[in-house]
């Protein structure tokens, strides 16, 4: 396994015309094709050699253990069950003790045993062949422009993602894959389920590939060679270590490749806080209420079957707690050159990199029961959506729990323009209890009928280049929308709001858990703010260069 471990480039594979290794270029309006070609060669050669190994524009195969990890384990389990049953049957056949109800015995008695065994073998061979060929046909390549995956035996799929449209890179290591030293690399681009998935790669290969993809996507023309030497030395050292030791090292090693990352996570979730955040959640209250309900129902009616009626709810609650727990365990968030890196998970780990400028909306919120402890949760909207709900929930929660200091640190990380003291004061006002006359424009008194408790808090402000919406007195939240990401803005008014001289303001962002909407505000305030936002959003978007986040600094530095 150790030799096959990393994705070897296939040798003796004559490239067909359509798979010629020269990178194909989607014609971009900005650059002429010739320029791009020259630049691409430069960009590729500038990469560290280890990273270039997989990102060289050639077709590569996935990790050899891939078939096993993608369903082969289920196949093995089925084979195991059959073998165990068959063993019983053969033991009985040779040593007497006939049992007429055994399926094998009945088959043998009716003369179907041999055909059935042959059929099972045929299915087995076919599926093994299927797994093997699907692995062989599953290839990927990374050029300086795009990442492309071809897969499928009968129904061929070819998926390409443009590197400059990357919304995030996720490396996840399910527990089984970790045992094999494999990892799943997912390149997310904007859209529903629009991800290019490379499952599975060798663990180190995945890390190197991430570095390479981010570097290519960032628009760097000259990469620093310092990173290359470091990782080469490390990989050279690995060769001498035994296989078992290597696996153990990989399991215990920190998630983040050391030379690419500032090592410290800026937020730490300690176990007491983690448990406290779970115990003090609304789900727990619901669970307690339901438990009381069950007890009352049982004691009144004397029937135990009430327990069964609530079984689905109990299962749901346990599932919820489990998913929250897994994404809070070993949680880390840190800043890298290529954006924010969020990692979590104890046995199955996940590690996501969000390049700069990929966060479309941020919500800092506080459930009622977290208030005494002063804890907050941070959620985000990103342009890539997963239809798998558990996965997307994990993706959308940037910080499961943290105190006010943590909130400020994380906000500074994801919205660097809010780092100055003035913005910080505004953010504090946005998160504080009852602000009366601060910079936020709040609902007028006549809106009290619509916002019973929160009319004093309910308001908006412009913090640096982000729109801030402050909402809720019981469930407090602060929504921040960076204007460079704002898609459009609208104001709405129904018959009721119109009678009261009020209006609603909506910031349209990509779909996600956050809706940046604020209602029950004075009409003239809304119109004024609408004009301000629609003007300054255009301004912010035009000066925003974060989709090529390194090119503006990197390029100028290189030329000097």
């Amino acid at each position: 396994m150790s030799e096959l471990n990393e994705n070897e480039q296939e040798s003796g594979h004559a490239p067909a015309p359509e798979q010629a290794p020269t990178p194909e270029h989607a014609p971009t309006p900005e650059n002429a094709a010739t320029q791009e070609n020259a630049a691409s060669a430069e960009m590729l050669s500038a990469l560290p050699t280890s990273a270039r190994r997989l990102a060289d524009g050639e077709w590569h195969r996935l990790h050899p253990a891939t078939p096993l990890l993608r369903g082969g384990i289920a196949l093995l389990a089925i084979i195991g069950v059959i073998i165990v049953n068959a063993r019983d049957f053969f033991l009985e056949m040779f040593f007497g003790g006939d049992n007429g109800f055994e399926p094998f015995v009945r088959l043998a008695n009716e003369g179907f045993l041999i055909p059935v065994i042959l059929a099972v073998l045929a299915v087995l061979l076919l599926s093994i062949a299927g797994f093997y060929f699907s692995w062989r046909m599953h290839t990927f390549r990374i050029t300086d422009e795009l990442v492309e995956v071809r897969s499928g035996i009968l129904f061929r799929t070819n998926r390409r993602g443009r590197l400059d449209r990357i919304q995030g890179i996720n490396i996840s290591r399910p527990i089984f894959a970790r045992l094999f030293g494999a990892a799943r690399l997912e390149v997310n681009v904007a859209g529903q389920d629009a991800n290019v998935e490379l499952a599975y790669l060798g663990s180190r290969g995945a890390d190197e590939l991430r570095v390479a993809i981010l570097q290519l996507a960032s628009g760097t023309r000259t990469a620093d060679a310092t990173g290359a030497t470091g990782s080469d030395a490390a990989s050279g050292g690995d060769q001498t270590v035994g296989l078992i030791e290597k696996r153990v090292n990989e399991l215990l090693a920190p998630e983040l490749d050391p030379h690419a990352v500032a090592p410290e996570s800026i937020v730490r979730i300690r176990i007491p806080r983690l448990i406290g955040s779970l115990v003090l959640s609304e789900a727990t209250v619901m669970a307690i209420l339901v438990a009381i309900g069950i007890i009352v129902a049982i004691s009144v009616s004397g029937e135990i079957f009430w327990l069964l009626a609530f079984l689905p709810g109990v299962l749901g609650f346990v599932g919820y707690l489990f998913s929250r727990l897994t994404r809070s365990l070993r949680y880390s968030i840190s800043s890298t050159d290529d954006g924010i890196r969020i990692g979590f998970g104890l046995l199955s780990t996940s590690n996501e990199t969000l390049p700069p400028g990929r966060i479309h909306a941020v919500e800092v919120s506080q459930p009622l029961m977290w208030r005494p402890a002063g804890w907050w949760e941070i959620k985000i909207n990103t342009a890539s959506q997963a239809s798998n709900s558990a996965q997307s929930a994990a993706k959308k929660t940037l910080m499961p729990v943290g105190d006010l200091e943590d909130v400020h640190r994380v906000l500074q990380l994801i919205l660097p323009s809010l780092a100055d003291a003035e913005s910080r004061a505004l953010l504090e006002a946005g998160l504080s209890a009852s602000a009366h006359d601060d910079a936020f424009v709040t609902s007028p008194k006549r809106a009290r009928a619509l916002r019973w408790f929160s009319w004093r808090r309910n308001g908006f402000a412009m913090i640096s280049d982000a729109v801030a919406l402050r909402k809720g007195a019981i469930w407090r939240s602060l929504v921040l929308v960076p204007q460079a990401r704002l898609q459009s803005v609208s104001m709405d008014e129904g018959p009721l709001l119109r009678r009261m001289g009020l209006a609603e303001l909506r910031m349209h962002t990509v779909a996600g858990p956050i809706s940046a909407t604020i209602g029950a505000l004075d009409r003239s305030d809304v119109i004024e703010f609408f004009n301000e936002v629609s003007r300054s959003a255009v301004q912010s978007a035009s000066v925003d260069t974060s989709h090529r986040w390194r090119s503006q600094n990197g390029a100028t530095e290189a030329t000097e």
Partner: protein
Amino acid sequence: MTERLDLPDIDWRGVSRKYVFVEVGGLVIFGLVVAAATSIPTILTGIQWLAAIPISLGIIFIINIMLTPRRVRAIGYMLRDDDLVFRRGLMFRRVVAVPYGRMQLVDINRGPLDRAVGLSELKFVTAAASTGVVIPGLPEQDAEELRDTLVALAESRRAGL
């Protein structure tokens, strides 16, 4: 009457008057179908008071049809320097501003009623589903010109996602 939500100093461009026919036609057809469907219980059972359902629905539709000309007049759009502003709605007023650079695509749709009077509907799509800018009732020629203008403007002000 209290004043409505509106943008000051904007010279709204309205949509074609013919769009009233499209709206009214659609409402009449829909109203007839609904009235027919809801009167089935009355006809089958012969219970008199069940007829209240189709009658009240019919009244709602008639009020709606009478308000249609005003509703169509309320639809307006304008191409500003850097963004498209769009307004619609009488009871539920909505004003949207979309920067040109946010455009992902522009659709032109023609329903059967639209085609009968030579109108088109233009849909401006951004990465946010909630933007929902649909300008109905544009003469075919205007819709195509507007589309080309918008595409050209978006190209010159291209922004990321």
